[in-house]
């Protein structure tokens, strides 16, 4: 073997081997070794280890963040779903609360009027331009008859014009065909409150010499036998005194917001047919 001829190389290897053996023996016996060389190795390795560790930490952090974000996306989906569920619950409860409030007002109204009454829920609204009517979920089976007045807590809403067994149609106060015997609460001047569509109502047949001011309250007069006396209709919003006409042009703003009718009560009057 060629390498055996080179005894110097072999001697060097044997020397290294012996150094290692001595080091091991020394270390096993005294529990330490390496001395300054060990410190040099550690000092050299430290920055390298630090660089590698920081790189690994960066990659590891990025990975963890990625995994976290994946988890976050899932969690976000779940939470969004849960939010949707909670919102629908909230809407249900809010609706229930509003229902309760309105029904409370209807109940208070029922107690306040001198007539027996039937509470009903509005089930449909006639969307025709010239017809202002609503359908309610009570009919003749509940004691309802034609021409019975329909009320809401804020005032008179209309009267029944068609009564079926379990459904009735009410003509609203603002319908062009609606006429209610009315009077001004302050002056007691009597007239007819007619529907005027989107403009509300007009009060007819109040003579020029009557004192009418904006804001005067208009109530039912009790004449005609359809509506009991004293039901709130609206307030005078505009008064015109024409030069040639005998009567004043009086516009009434109804107290009832007809776009928000949900529950009503129907007064069981003796005049109902």
């Amino acid at each position: 073997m060629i390498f055996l001829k080179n005894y110097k190389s072999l001697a060097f290897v044997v020397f290294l081997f012996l150094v290692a053996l001595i080091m091991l023996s020394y270390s096993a016996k005294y529990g330490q070794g390496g001395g300054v060389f060990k410190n040099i190795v550690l000092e050299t390795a430290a920055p390298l280890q630090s660089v590698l560790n920081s790189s690994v930490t960066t990659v590891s952090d990025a990975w963890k963040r990625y995994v976290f974000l994946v988890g976050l996306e899932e969690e976000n989906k779940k939470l969004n779903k849960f939010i949707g569920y909670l919102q629908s619950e909230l809407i249900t409860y809010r609706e229930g609360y509003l229902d309760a409030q309105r029904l409370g007002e209807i109940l208070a109204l029922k107690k306040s009027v001198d007539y027996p009454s039937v509470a009903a829920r509005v089930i449909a609204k006639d969307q025709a331009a010239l017809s202002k009517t609503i359908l309610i979920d009570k009919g003749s089976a509940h004691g309802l008859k034609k021409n019975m007045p329909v009320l809401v807590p804020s005032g008179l809403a209309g009267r029944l014009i068609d009564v079926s067994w379990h459904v009735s149609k009410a003509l609203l106060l603002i319908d062009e065909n609606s006429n209610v015997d009315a009077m001004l609460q302050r002056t007691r001047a009597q007239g007819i409150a007619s529907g005027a569509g989107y403009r509300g109502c007009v009060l007819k047949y109040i003579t020029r010499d009557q004192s009418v001011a904006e804001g005067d309250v208009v109530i039912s007069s009790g004449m005609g036998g359809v509506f009991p006396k004293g039901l709130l209709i609206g307030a005078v919003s505009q008064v015109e005194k024409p030069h040639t006409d005998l009567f004043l042009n009086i516009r009434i703003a109804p107290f009832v917001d007809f776009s928000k009718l949900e529950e009503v009560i129907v007064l069981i009057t003796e005049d109902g047919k």
Partner: protein
Amino acid sequence: MSYIIYLLLPLLSISLVVLQATLADIFFSGRLVIELSLIAVIYAGFRMELISGSVFAFITGFVFDCIAGSVMGLFTFFYSIVFICSFIFSLIIDSSRLLFISLYSFCCALTEKMLVILFYKLFLGFDASTGLPFVFLSETLLLGLLAPAFFYLMRRLEIIFYGKPLQRAEHTGSG
């Protein structure tokens, strides 16, 4: 040129040991050690010159002792033995076959682990055999699998740097 190699060897050894510790941390959370340094020493025994190879094995063992915190000199001594054995084997057997490299690395690693256990038991009175055999076996198997890949990569590097696989003087007859 050869002096530069001797200056670079310690840095190479330190980098190797630090790298293997980092890899162990990344892949096995420090539970298993991928002892690339042992494969490197075997590679040195198979491919490098006697003196530079023995210096490399000595330094790598020393660095491993310093950084791994084991008994000082244990791996220095063991890596020197591995280098000498590998060197002798490479002269007798065709050491370029991957299966041989794999089996030889596995045997070296297994012997190393057994010697470590024996050393701890005989000289330090510490019984390392309980629980550790599974870890040691996993490490040796891993090493046996990684060794051919390491040798293959080194061969590619040799071709890149020298234009052909490295052949030492003992093989060419010029040493």
